[in-house]
Every structure is written in structure tokens, then in C-alpha cells.
């Protein structure tokens, strides 16, 4: 309390008097916009996730009751269809993230390094070409991919030329790992793996891997987002001074050594940005799924974001939809914090972190 009083005295008098009020006035538009379009909707959604609102009139009307954690329980602990759908969607999305985030980061980095080379002819052309999918609407790309990946489409025609009988990509619900296991003769789970496990999904189902349909979407995501992240890496690469390259050369570092010991560490802040954006974006994947109908391919392309939409608008279970959204929100925050911790610089170089590099 004393502390506050001290602050007040300092603010209140002298030449800086009235500054605080002016400050508030200047930030007021931004604060109001944030409140109306961000804070209040989030608060309302939080309320909806604890209520039995059915989507009729305002969520604050008197007929809506507080139901505590019922909505959260229905999708996480109460066994039933809601729990199963949520579990499946989490599994699908988990594999999506596991494949998309590392692959798109590596490809973006490699592309950036290539188009950054001074000796490359037509650099401008390649930079534009790689960036192009990022500025195209995902919906348009999904529709093009649907044609490419039909059972008699271009992709199957190409792999057919090598004597491989391609799958019906977007309709194939076989898990990739299950497919691999069946090659060695394992087609059925045994013992514990067959029992319903976490979120009502058996261990065998958790280990299914992304379905063939989901794998097509993984390729699509890598195709569309690598260009964006290439641009971020490119900007960072160009800020690495030529003198550092020269110094590495003088120390006798080869191209590989230079890449791993100079370029990657210098790109660490960008790497953090790219991984964070990739992680958040992949956990929120929605438009591709919506365009494909969401429930096709044996439910193996459904994601929590799509399920939140479907529960709310189609099944009128708005509370469950909001609960899914909040679980996803917490999940993303936890994963981002984990990733931040994993990428943090440690050991003797700690001082640099304090200097604000990360």
C-alpha cells in the first residue's frame, strides 16, 4: 500500500502532472478494441464452456445454467462418443504436428539457404516460386490437391509408372504405422494395447500414425507454409554479416561445419519464431479439414479445432465446443512454453540470454 502511495505522489505533482491521464486517453481506442473484440469474447467463451447454453439467444440469458466442469468431463473422462471423437481428433492432430512442424522447418531452412546463395542464377524467380503457395488461399490448394490425389489422379499416375498401386489418398483411413506393421504381419493388437486407454482410445489406435488421408494433408501443409517460413529464414540469413562467413573460412571451417556451427546458432531466434508459429498453426488447422468435410476418411482427418466447430454449430453442444477450444488453448500454451525451455540457451553462454538475444 505504501508503495502505491509513493508512486501516486510521484505521478501526481510537478511538470509531469496529467501525463498519466493523457496516456490513458491515447491508448483508450486500442484498449477498447481489445476489450470488445478479444477480452469480452474470450470471457464469454469461457462462460459458455461452463454452461449448458444451446446456442439460443445470448449466452447470458437467464435460462442458461452453470454446469461446472460437465462439458470438460464429457470430452475427457466420461466414456462415450464425445470422448472418443475428442481422443481421435487429438491423436490425428498430434501426428499432424509431429510431421508438419519439423519437416516444414527443415525444408524452409534448406530453401532459404539455397535461394540465399550469391551464385544461384534466377534467385528472384525461385524466391517467388517457393513463396507462391503461401499467398494462395488454402481452400484453392485443397481443391487442386483433391484432383491430384484422387485414385486415378496425377499422383497415382506418376507412382503407377514405377509399378506402385497408389491408394485412394483422401478416402484412405489406414494409419501409416498400422500399414507398416501389417507388412511384417501384425494386423491386430494384443494384450494391453487393445484396451481403451487415454481419452477412450486404445493404445493400438494411438499408435496408428497419421492415416493416408492425413498424410496427404501433411504434404499440403508443408507445401503451403514452407514458403512463408523460408522468407523469415531468408531475412535472418541476410542479416548474418559477410565478415562472420570470412572469419569461419579463415578458421578453416567447411560448408557443413559452417552451417551447423555458425548459421544455425545465429538463426536461433528465428528458429524459435518459426517453430512457435508452426506449432500454433498446426494445432489450429481447420480450413483444409472443413473443405474436405471433416468426417470423411473414417474420422482420421478430424482435428480438435474442427470438432469444436462441429459440436457447436451442428450438434448444438456449444459448451462442449467451447471446452474443446479452451483445452486446445491450454495445450498450445504448455507446448510453446516447453519448446521455449527446450530451445533456451544454457551453460556458459547464459549471459547472452540476459542481453536480450532470446
Amino acid at each position, binding site marked *: 500500500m505504501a508503495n502505491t502511495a509513493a508512486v501516486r505522489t510521484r505521478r501526481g505533482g510537478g511538470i509531469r502532472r496529467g501525463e498519466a491521464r493523457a496516456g490513458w486517453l491515447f491508448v483508450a481506442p486500442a*484498449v477498447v478494441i481489445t476489450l470488445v473484440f478479444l477480452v469480452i469474447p474470450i470471457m464469454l467463451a469461457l462462460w459458455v464452456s461452463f454452461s449448458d447454453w*444451446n446456442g439460443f439467444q445470448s449466452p447470458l440469458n437467464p435460462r442458461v445454467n452453470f454446469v461446472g466442469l460437465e462439458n470438460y468431463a464429457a470430452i475427457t473422462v466420461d466414456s462415450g462418443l464425445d470422448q472418443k471423437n475428442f481422443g481421435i481428433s487429438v491423436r490425428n492432430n498430434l501426428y499432424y504436428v509431429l510431421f508438419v512442424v519439423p519437416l516444414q522447418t527443415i525444408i524452409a531452412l534448406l530453401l532459404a539457404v539455397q535461394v540465399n546463395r550469391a551464385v544461384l542464377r534466377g534467385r528472384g524467380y525461385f524466391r517467388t516460386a517457393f513463396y507462391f503457395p503461401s499467398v494462395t488461399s488454402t481452400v484453392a490448394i485443397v481443391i487442386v490437391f483433391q484432383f491430384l490425389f484422387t485414385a486415378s489422379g496425377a499422383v497415382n499416375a506418376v507412382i503407377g509408372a514405377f509399378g506402385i498401386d497408389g491408394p485412394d489418398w483422401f478416402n484412405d483411413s489406414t494409419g501409416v504405422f498400422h500399414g507398416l506393421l501389417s507388412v511384417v504381419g501384425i494386423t491386430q493388437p494384443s494384450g494391453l494395447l487393445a484396451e481403451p486407454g487415454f481419452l477412450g482410445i486404445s493404445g493400438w489406435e494411438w499408435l496408428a500414425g497419421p492415416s493416408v488421408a492425413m498424410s496427404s494433408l501433411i504434404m499440403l501443409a508443408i507445401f503451403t507454409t514452407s514458403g512463408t517460413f523460408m522468407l523469415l529464414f531468408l531475412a535472418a540469413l541476410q542479416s548474418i554479416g559477410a565478415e562472420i562467413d570470412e572469419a569461419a573460412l579463415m578458421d578453416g571451417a567447411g560448408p557443413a561445419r559452417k552451417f551447423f556451427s555458425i548459421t544455425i546458432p545465429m538463426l536461433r531466434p528465428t528458429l524459435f519464431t518459426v517453430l512457435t508459429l508452426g506449432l500454433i498453426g498446426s494445432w489450429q488447422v481447420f480450413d483444409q479439414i472443413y473443405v474436405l468435410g471433416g468426417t470423411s476418411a473414417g474420422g482420421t482427418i478430424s482435428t480438435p479445432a474442427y470438432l469444436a466447430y462441429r459440436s457447436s454449430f451442428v*450438434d448444438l453442444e456449444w459448451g462442449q465446443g467451447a471446452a474443446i477450444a479452451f483445452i486446445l488453448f491450454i495445450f498450445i500454451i504448455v507446448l510453446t512454453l516447453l519448446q521455449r525451455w527446450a530451445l533456451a540457451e544454457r551453460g556458459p553462454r547464459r549471459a547472452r540470454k540476459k542481453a536480450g538475444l532470446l
Partner: protein
Amino acid sequence: MRTSQWSAVALAAGLVVTLAACAPAEEGGDVQTGQDLTILIGSSGEAETTAVQAAADAWATETGNTVEVIAASDLVQQLGQGFSGNNPPDLFYMPWDQFQTYAAQGFLEPYADDLANTADFLPALRDQFSYDGQFYCAPKDFSTLGLQINLDAWEAAGLTDADIPTDWDQLATVAAALTTPDQVGLSMGREYARVGVFMNQAGGTLVDGATAVADSAENAEALDYLQGLIADGSLKFPQELEAGWGGEAFGLGKAAMVIEGPWINGAMRNDFPDRKFISVELPAGPGGPSTFAFSNCWGMPVGSETRDATLDLIEFLTSDEQQLAFAEAFGVIPSTESGSAAYAAQFPENAAFVAGVASAVSPVAFSGAAAALADFNTQLEQIGSADPSALLNSLQVNLQAALDEANG
């Protein structure tokens, strides 16, 4: 401290603004004329939108109101948005599979008994749009499922009128006869709305009162029969034929027979005008003949402020005259006894769909059933290889859970 006070004030102010926006707008004045009504429809295409707009305009001119017809791109989503924003359309298509859910949640005005023509509707459709014993909304039109036969393929296979299948064995025989390397004998959507017909024909059903009976021997027999057709190679689903739906597979010549409703006429006329085909009644199963009746009703939001004007509009839209005009424009069957009889006389090629009414039942659609049936549709992707009783067992569990919830 100061910050939190300011935030609290701003939050409160914001809430007041939000709440004010949510409060219903007061409207007074005459209920009969000068109303601006909005109709939200899930249109099958340009023809339907134009026909509904023309009918609405005719009524509007006559009564001195204005009506705007909006063709939804995603009807259920746009309805959900309208209701949650407290701004639902005055009149909308209420799909059969969502009706029970909307009625159970108290979204709909049970106006149907106040209509002058309330007694004219077909009994099966009255049942479909009744909730808790009350007839809620006027059926807009209806469709039943029939069997479409590609006449060129039929002749090529050396089949005659006498071979038109009337039971499951004959269906299997002709499907096998029609199957060639380029064409499958029979195709239909891989979903409850088609597969369920076979369950009913076997004498099965999904729900008996408050009990789910999905895992009955009859239902298993239906799935067994379909598995037999799949094993013979004479039944393939549109996905396997690279078609979006049964009608497309039929039009492309990839399937010689499909199970669809009267909407297939319009689709063939627009996309495959050269396809020569007939529609016949579905063959009967061991439990007798059965087909599904699908319908939309004209939904009205509960407590509608334009109730009187909208009721008048609905009476106009469901009159035999207007329904026959719709039938001509986009191929639906009138929902009234006299209207459907007139339709069968006027369009003899569609008489099979009208005849189906005698054995038509409504697909299971109680509040909460949609999720269980969506899961069943997903499970049906394995129908070629899975054990029928396993498919039905999971449906049984999910349906029973949904029933328990619906009945509190």
C-alpha cells in the same frame, strides 16, 4: 490497482454494450402488411432459389409485404449463427435430421396446428415433424428413395421389364448381371440414409421406444446381405467409383443402378442429359417393402414477431397449387395427400416415389442421434471387411447413450 479499476469499468461498459446488442428489438405496428420477411433456404441450385423467390414475391405483392430469399451455403451453420445472434430468419428450411434437436432445444415455434391446411399433410410427414406429440412445422415437400435403372445397361445385359427386381434375391441377380469390368451393378451412398433402408426391409429398426435395438439379428442380416453384394463385386460405393454421390456414379455410367430420390431427375437433366433411366420402387426384403421419406419443413423461430404474416406465407407456400409449381421447377413431391396424388398423375415417371409413401418410414433423427449416426457412417467405411455385429454393437451403445440423454 488503478489499472484494475479502469479495466473493471471498461469491462462493465463493454458488457453493457454487448448485452444491449443482444436484447430483442422492439417492433410494433401492423402484423399483416408492410413486413420485411427473410427466408433462409438450403437450395439445391439456381432453379430452386428462383422458384422460391418467385413464389415469395407473388405472395408479397398480394399482401403488401416484402420477402427476401437467402440461399444458404451451409444451412445448419447459418441457422446456428442466426439463433445465437438472436436474429434468426423469419422462415427457414428445417432439415429432417436436425428437426428433433432444434425442437428439443426450444428453437422452433409449434405453429403447424394453426394452419388452415394442417389436416392435408401426409401422416408420415406429420409424424416426422412432431416432437413430444405436437405437430411443429409444415412439411415443405418430401422425397422417398427409389431404385434407378440405366436402361442402356439394362438392355445390354439382356434384361427385360420382367426382370425388374422386387426382392433381395432378384436385386442380387440383376446387380451381378449388370456388373462389367467398367461398370458396377449397384451403387449408393455409404451412409445410414441408404444402408438403413435395407435394415428396415429386413424387418429391423434402430430404436424401439426408449430402447436402442440396433444390434438385432434383422439388422445384421441386412449388413450380411450388403456384404454379400460387395463380395460379389456387384455393389460399390461412390467413393470407390470416384464419384461425389450415387447420382454422379450413375450419370458417368460407372453404376448401372443406384438408390436415390427424385432429386436425381434434376441432376441427370442438368449434368447428364443423355442418360436414359427409370425409377422403380425399392425391392422388398425378408421383412417386406420399406423406404425412407426425407423432408424439410418450414421452420419458424419460437416467439416470432412476424408470426401472423409468416403463417399466411406458409399457407401460401404449402398450397397444392404452389407445391405443384415447385414440383415442376425442381422435382420435389408435394407434401399433401391431394398434392402428391396430382403429382403422380402429372409426372408418371415419378409415380414410384409417390407409391413409396405407403411403406415409407422416417430415418431415426431424435435429438442427439445425429452424432451416433455420424459415427456409424464413419464405421460403415469398413463394411466391406468388418464383422456386421461389431458395427452394430458400437451403434447400439452410442444410440442408447444418446437416447438416455434425450430422455433425461
